[in-house]
């Protein structure tokens, strides 16, 4: 039986961690992810887990310690946000290329500057090419459910890649919502134990990790890593199918909301998708053929699935909650428009950068986007393709 609870996203993650009982947790505080290790420290203090909990002196070191532990044969976890994730940058790439399936919880927060503690995806989007799998959540329930699926995906022999479970800073990490938790023993049975084939502490067969790879070998390693990321798509779907069978909640790479006959669509991520769904409902009631795609898995990027879902739309807005400073659009736009390029008939597409540093995104904001899409569909003219919304006029 599921357990009805009221939890913040951070406590939901910490609860999932407690149920999984990882071998090593290396922590360093940063707002808004700090609560995750705080809750966990109490579980350690109360004897609810037998994890080795180490408080290191930086995020660079927290992930480095996770690498050492994971390579040694452990299930290792950590959590961070914003500048902390940026500080890990170098080690993220090492984790992925060393094929060490560390699970990292990220409470997504703006990057400095100006310094800001609120939500956007500047931090996680900046790491989109690090080789980590990235799974995003709309609400606290999804955060919890995603976390329960994380280790199985990351550790799968066809994948063996580190994984980020992303929640929206404060909006998801701190806001308390109703949530259905699963029973400890059922979670343990679903997640299973970690049995790596090779590890540093395997007494009968030592292991060497992290070689110097000259040009004669580097490319093969990178291609193998690329294939692992491609393999992750099917594994994510398989784990989701088993999750649905076990716990009854269904997940995919993307969520299509009222897309069957949609002419105007939004591609959006995280908690903003919940807000936009309310706008879609209102517009549908008025007879507007509005729909949206929520991206749950950003790495591997579900380009084919997104293109397929958008192929019959007339106008599409890509909602970027990070400014990539490319000068021509955010990262979600770049990838989505690229994914749609080979469609026989393509929808008109614009990029809207919104919600930076916690700038509010309301149902009205979402409706204004659909208004704009309606005009684009009617006139066949996109106007400026790359725009920002919600900021003060100069």
């Amino acid at each position, binding site marked *: 039986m599921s357990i009805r609870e009221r939890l913040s996203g951070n406590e939901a993650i910490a609860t999932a961690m407690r149920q999984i009982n990882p071998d090593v947790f290396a922590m360093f505080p940063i707002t808004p992810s700090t609560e995750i290790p705080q809750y966990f420290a109490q579980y350690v203090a109360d004897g609810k887990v037998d994890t080795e909990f*180490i408080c290191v*002196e930086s995020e660079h070191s927290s992930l*480095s310690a996770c690498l*050492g532990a994971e390579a040694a044969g452990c299930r290792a976890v950590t959590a961070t946000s914003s500048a902390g994730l940026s500080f890990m940058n170098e080690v993220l790439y*090492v984790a992925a290329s060393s094929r060490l399936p560390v699970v990292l919880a990220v409470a997504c927060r703006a990057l400095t500057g100006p310094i800001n503690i609120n939500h956007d995806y500047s931090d996680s989007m900046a790491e989109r090419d690090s080789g980590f799998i990235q799974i995003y959540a709309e609400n606290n329930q999804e955060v919890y459910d995603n976390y329960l699926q994380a280790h199985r995906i990351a550790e799968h022999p066809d994948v063996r890649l580190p994984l980020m479970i992303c929640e929206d800073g404060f909006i998801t990490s701190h806001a308390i919502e109703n949530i259905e938790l699963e029973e400890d023993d059922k979670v343990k049975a679903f997640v299973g134990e970690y049995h790596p084939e090779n590890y*540093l502490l395997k007494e009968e067969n030592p292991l060497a990790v992290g070689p110097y790879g000259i040009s004669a070998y580097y490319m093969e390693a990178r291609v193998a890593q690329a294939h692992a990321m491609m393999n992750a798509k099917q594994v994510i779907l398989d784990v989701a199918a088993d999750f649905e069978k076990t716990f009854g909640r269904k997940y995919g790479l993307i969520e299509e909301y009222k897309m069957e006959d949609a002419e105007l669509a939004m591609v959006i991520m995280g908690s903003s998708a919940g807000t936009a769904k309310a706008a879609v409902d209102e517009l549908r009631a008025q007879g507007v053929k509005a729909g949206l795609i929520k991206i749950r898995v950003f790495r591997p990027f579900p380009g084919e699935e997104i293109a397929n879902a958008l192929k019959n739309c007339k106008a599409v807005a890509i909602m970027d909650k990070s400014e990539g400073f490319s000068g021509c659009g955010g990262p979600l736009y770049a990838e989505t428009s690229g994914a749609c390029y080979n469609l026989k008939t393509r929808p008109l597409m614009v990029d809207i950068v919104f919600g930076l540093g916690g700038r509010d995104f309301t149902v009205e904001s979402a409706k204004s986007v659909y208004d704009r899409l309606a005009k684009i569909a009617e006139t066949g003219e996109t106007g400026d393709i790359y725009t920002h919304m919600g900021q003060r006029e100069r």
Partner: protein
Amino acid sequence: MAYNLKEEMNKKERFNPGHRLCAGCGAGIVCRAMMRAVDENDKAVICNATGCLEVSSFQYPYTAWDDSYIHTAFENASSTASGVCAAVEVMKRKGKINPDTNYKVLVIGGDGGTYDIGFQSLSGALERGHDLTYFCYDNNAYMNTGTQRSSATPRFAAATTTPAGVDSVGKKQDQKDLTQIVVAHGVHYAAQTTLFGNMKDFHEKAHRAIYTEGPTFVNVLTPCPRGWNYPTEDLLAICKAAIDTCVWPVYEVVDGEYRLTYEPKKKLPVEEFMKLQGRFAHCFKKGNEWTIEAAQKYVDKKWEDLLAKCK
């Protein structure tokens, strides 16, 4: 058991030939000696910072190391090792590995990866008290990238970023005294040594460090023929000169108690060390005599301070 060179040399090598370190490099000698100090039935995990040793000893698909080995990056060997230490603890507790097997976590980095970029992670690991031994092979500069000065480079040494010239006599600053900084962390064992004699000094310190519980530190002056500019066969002569001039005193600190492990019968002038190496050649030019005097003054002061601590 008394140290016996012959017995030690008859042990199976755990750092094997075929690595790509330069002829006349001290790092290979450090690694062999470090591994001889691990008791034969004990397992080791080596955590190596990026540097000459890493690119030379584990070039895919070959490794020179018999024991498990991990390299992740330049500045985080100590934090990576912290994770390995945590793994040993928890896997024994959970019965995932044999609780009776002794796993020794050895961290090794050059001075760049230890004194400079790896300083924070080293300090963190020492403070947390993990059961690891850090070996610094201090060759006084960033050698893997071509002899750029580090905080371990001694004053007046020429490096590619502190070259000698009309307006320069090499590095302007004195060497950071990292061993003292480590001692200030309150570790149970810290030592300085180098490669000299029958390696007894190195062996005994390494063994004591490895078999003292908690974080321990061994700082090894390790000449580099490319960066110090000496004929490869002079490696051991330079180490001997370093201890006889007291440029690199060899001592140990056990729970705060200092002990000199080698005292030269006759303390030699610093130029006996400096003249063996091209990196100090400019100090011997006319008009630069003051540099040798200044170097001597610094060494004398440090030596006096150390002797006072050893009383």
